[in-house]
């Protein structure tokens, strides 16, 4: 049985009997700083329409047409059309043509064969009917333009900040090499890591390290891996065990290499046990249950949670509290920080997580990067104050400077 289905355009039919006038002033242009896949359309909507359809052709001003967007609300006056969603397989054409169709009660209806998976002929026929209807505008062409570089103020400022951090890092590194002192303020949470490892050694119990539950490419996980290198080296020097509990297999592989490197650097390669770097599960709560099991059965003296955590943060930290472990946590995830603060002995807040590696290593080259980001922080604080004053005086210049535009 072939059933016929009326869709989409039915929604737009009103009681208006007369034909809707075409929209006027249709303009097609490439958005600024664009990837070359989008075109902006703007027009003045007619008064008597029930909705608008945007038709696109990549062959010529007379079609064939495809529906690019719609039905749009009657009062809509602009839209952005993505000319292709698969630029690798179907790159954008040099030129596109558009028609805007005002819909009314006489507009053709789309009738699809419900048994056909994608009734392309029916859609093409419908688009052709729409393009030929009275409510259609004349064809207007548009040329996608891909920008080679985004030179908007916001992007340039961001580039300046990144280059600024990089440049300051290299300059301070050079200063450190020449012997200039690099001061870094004391962070009790980081000092506690070494104390915690010492405590574990005295108690003859392992240290548990959890690098969060996010993928390896997350910057917090990367920071956690860098810290793990320092922690495992200290653990090896103290001749104690470290259990690394991982939620992502790729993170486990990297953690395994990092722990191995720590033991090698400490001069105890034989003490390294790959079975202590464990993948438990990539499911959040299965991983949490597994890590809780480690805490309750293997009773680590010190738990270190550094990385990106979500709802499991408090479950892990409270289980560690029940186990009477010393707990040091650090994350830049603002929603989980209160839980760590409440349940752990020490918490590294936000940026402190990214400072741990440099702090522990005391390598002047790494400490110099902290100094560089501190200088940029001063710049941002000054910008915030200036921006607040400027906005209070009615000027949005600083806001515009920090606004990111373009794709």
């Amino acid at each position, binding site marked *: 049985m072939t059933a016929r289905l009326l869709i989409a355009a039915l929604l737009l039919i009103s009681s208006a009997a007369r034909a809707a006038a075409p929209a006027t002033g249709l303009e097609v242009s490439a958005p600024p700083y664009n990837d*070359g*896949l989008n075109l902006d359309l703007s027009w003045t909507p007619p008064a008597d329409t029930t909705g608008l359809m945007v038709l696109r052709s990549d062959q010529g001003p007379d079609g064939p047409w495809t529906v690019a967007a719609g039905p749009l609300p009657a009062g809509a006056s602009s839209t952005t059309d993505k000319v292709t969603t698969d*630029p*690798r397989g179907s790159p954008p054409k040099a030129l596109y043509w558009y028609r805007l169709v005002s819909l009314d009660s006489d507009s053709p209806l789309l009738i699809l064969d419900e048994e056909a998976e994608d009734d392309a002929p029916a859609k093409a026929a419908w688009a052709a009917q729409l393009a030929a209807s009275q409510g259609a505008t004349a064809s207007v062409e548009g040329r996608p333009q*891909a*920008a*080679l*570089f*985004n030179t908007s103020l916001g992007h340039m400022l961001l580039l300046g*900040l*990144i280059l600024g*951090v*990089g440049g300051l*890092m*290299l300059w301070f*590194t050079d200063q450190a090499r020449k012997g200039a002192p690099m001061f870094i303020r004391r962070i009790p949470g980081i000092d506690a890591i070494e104390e915690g490892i010492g405590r574990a050694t005295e108690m003859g119990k392992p240290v548990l390290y959890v690098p969060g539950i996010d*993928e390896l490419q997350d*910057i917090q996980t*990367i920071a956690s891996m*860098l810290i793990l*290198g320092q922690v495992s080296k200290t653990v090896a020097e103290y001749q104690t065990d470290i259990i690394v509990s991982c939620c992502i*297999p*790729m993170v*486990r592989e990297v953690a395994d290499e*990092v722990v*191995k*490197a720590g033991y*090698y650097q400490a001069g105890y*390669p034989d003490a390294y046990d*790959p*079975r202590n*770097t464990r*993948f438990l599960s*990539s*499911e959040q*709560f*299965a991983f*949490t*249950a597994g890590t809780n*099991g480690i805490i309750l059965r293997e009773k680590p003296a010190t738990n270190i949670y550094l990385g990106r955590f979500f*709802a499991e943060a*408090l*479950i892990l930290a409270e289980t560690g509290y029940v186990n009477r472990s010393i707990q040091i946590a650090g994350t*830049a995830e*603002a929603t989980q920080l209160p*839980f760590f603060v*409440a*349940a752990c002995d020490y918490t590294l*807040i*936000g*940026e402190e997580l*990214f400072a741990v590696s440099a702090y522990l290593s005391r390598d002047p080259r*790494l400490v110099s*990067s*902290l100094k*560089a980001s501190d200088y*940029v*922080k001063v710049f*941002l604080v000054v910008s915030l104050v200036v921006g607040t004053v400027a906005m209070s005086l009615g000027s949005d210049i600083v806001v515009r400077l920090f606004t990111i535009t373009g*794709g």
Partner: protein
Amino acid sequence: MKRSLPLIITFLIGMFMIGEFFIPHYRYRVWTAEFLEWGLILAAAAFVLGFVNLIQVNAPKVARRDADWGYKLIMLVVMIVTMVAGFIAGEERSRVDNLYKWVYDFVFVPLNATMFALLAFYISSAAFRAFRARNLEAALLLGAAILVMIARVPAGESLPVVGEYLPKVMNWIMDVPNIAARRAIFIGAALGAVATGLRVILGLERSHLGAD
């Protein structure tokens, strides 16, 4: 060479990926998408290594009848049964009734919900400790928490005299000091992330490169 090559690759790929933010051209993004796909393939391959690791860690403990070996045996059996059931059911595993879907619906989902539900009790015990007014900061925290909690429940608004002001006080606490502190954390963390990323890309940070 074992250290230099990863450093060179990290630098080149890192700079290329930073470039994506400043070069909007679609051809550039096709390449960055390609690199990200390589990453996904590597991550998928790592699941095989994760499976091997689970066997390596748990099977010997079962064989030796170590403490709690029964849990490890259950874990290994369930893992293998679920995996085999998934392979047998194929692409339809989540849609039609089969062993995989049964395990998912009637074992995994309830266990997951149970773990999540524990959070309510953990929040209570953590809050009890956090809200003890041991010093000025903790007392301020306690005061703010009580105000926000009372204002969030319907009974708070119906309190005589103060009821109508509580939501305003709560909104001020949430929108002013709370948002200010969150933004400070975000800005600091973002800068820390940039510095950490640059340390890795520029090769200043090398502790992740593994053993020589």
